[in-house]
């Protein structure tokens, strides 16, 4: 019971603090925003820990648990990058708004999952699944952070091209792309062990591949400087829209093997 309460308190606390961080970034109060963001991050991590302690396993099996990790990775990246590079600070308003929206989604549509803890079905009891979902959360977190930085750049209009910004964006996307590639490969291994088929063109698999292709195109053309910075930023934003569709849209519109996610 204490763990349920701790989980609830940590979730709602992180939700409020992330919302507060977004508002403070909009109002150009970076000190207050950073304070909210850091405390929110700690509560987010506490929610993951409480959930893991309650389930007795890695908390990676439903949308609530995944969103906790997704948010944790993106906030960590932001704090690590914007702490060093002050020009990225305004992206905080976008990033924390998106993170708060993710929490709002849980509050509106998956509130039951915050307190519920159903035992794992046999197919989900696999280390391959744990590594598959962890790397997916890592990838999605990177893509969210990259989209926030790209949106910031786009919102500044046709400013002079900044090669340092382009390089930073490329590095974040490459990290996410690598994590997504590993996640897809690990998911394929898990599916092969559990169901005897490493690729079934399940909607989630298909849309993960589509997302992978869009980021692969971005990485190829951005590396060759074939795109302007604006086009690169638009591609990163499109990639993130696909990430959101793969995570939310597929669950609601195209049920398949991943319908528990």
């Amino acid at each position, binding site marked *: 019971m204490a763990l349920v309460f701790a989980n609830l308190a940590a979730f709602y606390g992180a939700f409020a603090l992330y919302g507060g961080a977004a508002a403070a970034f909009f109002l150009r109060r970076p000190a207050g925003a950073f304070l909210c963001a850091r405390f929110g991050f700690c509560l987010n991590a506490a929610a993951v820990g409480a959930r893991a302690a309650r389930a007795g396993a890695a908390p990676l099996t439903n949308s609530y648990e995944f969103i906790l990790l997704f948010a944790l990775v993106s906030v960590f990246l932001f704090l690590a990058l914007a702490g060093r590079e002050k020009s990225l600070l305004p992206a905080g308003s976008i990033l924390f708004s998106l993170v708060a929206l993710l929490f709002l989604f849980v509050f509106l549509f998956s509130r039951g999952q915050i307190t519920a803890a*159903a*035992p794992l*079905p*046999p*197919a989900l*009891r*696999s280390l*391959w699944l744990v590594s598959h979902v962890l790397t997916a959360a890592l990838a999605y977190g990177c893509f969210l952070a990259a989209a926030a930085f790209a949106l910031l750049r786009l919102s500044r209009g046709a400013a002079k091209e900044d*090669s340092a910004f*382009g*390089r930073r964006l*490329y*590095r974040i996307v*490459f*990290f996410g792309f*690598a994590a997504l*590639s*590993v996640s897809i*490969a690990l998911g*394929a*291994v*898990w599916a*092969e*062990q*559990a*169901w*005897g*088929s*490493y*690729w079934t*063109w399940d*909607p989630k698999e*298909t*849309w993960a*591949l*589509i997302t992978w*292709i*869009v980021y*692969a*195109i971005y990485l*190829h*053309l*951005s*590396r*060759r*400087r074939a795109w302007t910075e604006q086009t690169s930023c638009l591609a990163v934003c499109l990639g993130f829209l696909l990430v959101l569709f793969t995570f939310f849209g597929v669950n609601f*519109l*195209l049920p398949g093997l991943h319908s528990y996610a």
Partner: protein
Amino acid sequence: MRAGLAILAMIAAMAAMGTFLWPGLFFRSPLFFFLFILLFLQMTFCGLSNLRRWRSLRLRAFALFCLHAGVLLILAGGGVNAKFGLTATLPLQAGEEGDAAAALGLTGGEPLWLRLNSFETEFYADGSPLQYYTRLTARTAGSSRTAEISVNHPFAINGVKIYQQSFGYLFWVREDGDGETRAFRLGENIPLQGEATLEIYHYIPAFDERAAVDTGRLRPDNPRIVYLLREGETGVSMRLAAPGERLEIGGNTLIFERVDMYTVLRLKTDPGLVPAACGAVALMAGICLGFIGIYVPGGSRSPLP
């Protein structure tokens, strides 16, 4: 490179449409297969033309080579599997022996017989399933091996991989008249006098008598068999029976003696698995090397954008 990216973009666009318009069908269509062949050929030619550049042993170039070779091998493995891979489903009840080679259509090769020794389900405290265990003996021409198969733990023998796919229920019914006990599966009909039949319609392992509902749990705490009485093609009534209960139906006396679970195994041969697995390893190696090239200072001499 641009041609390859254009093909990738076409695959993405068509896959997106396929999930909405023709789910399950589009991905087996010749057009989709053709796009992958085109991508494979384009990447092969592009790779060959870049080979000289990649030979320069620069870390970044080698990482790119591994990444692209990995994708090529995965595509090749997938293609080989789609063309030559075989799958089959084999239901087995305790003591039964099934011909796995015949189920897969492997004629002329070494025989493979699977005999089910036992099938058990392990449950959580709340009655939901924790794991399914199939214990079997696999017999080939010259040897026999025992194995335990469970979800996420397949067993491979003679190039055939065996997975725990599903399970079913077997209903042992005794007719008082002849005393013979026969096994029926869900949906099967038991002939009664005249044109009447009894269809085994549904099985409820844990029935809640107070609320008169199926709890949805799989542990057989309070099992009930739902049966449908028919006169010819017309359903007359639907009733519940507990195992061991004596049923008097229109001059027949039936007893559902017990309900056993049988296992359903998935059998597979996948000649494309080895190239696909090598491709995945090459892809991972390329990613690791790419990481070193991008994130470790001095890891790559070529500038980033």
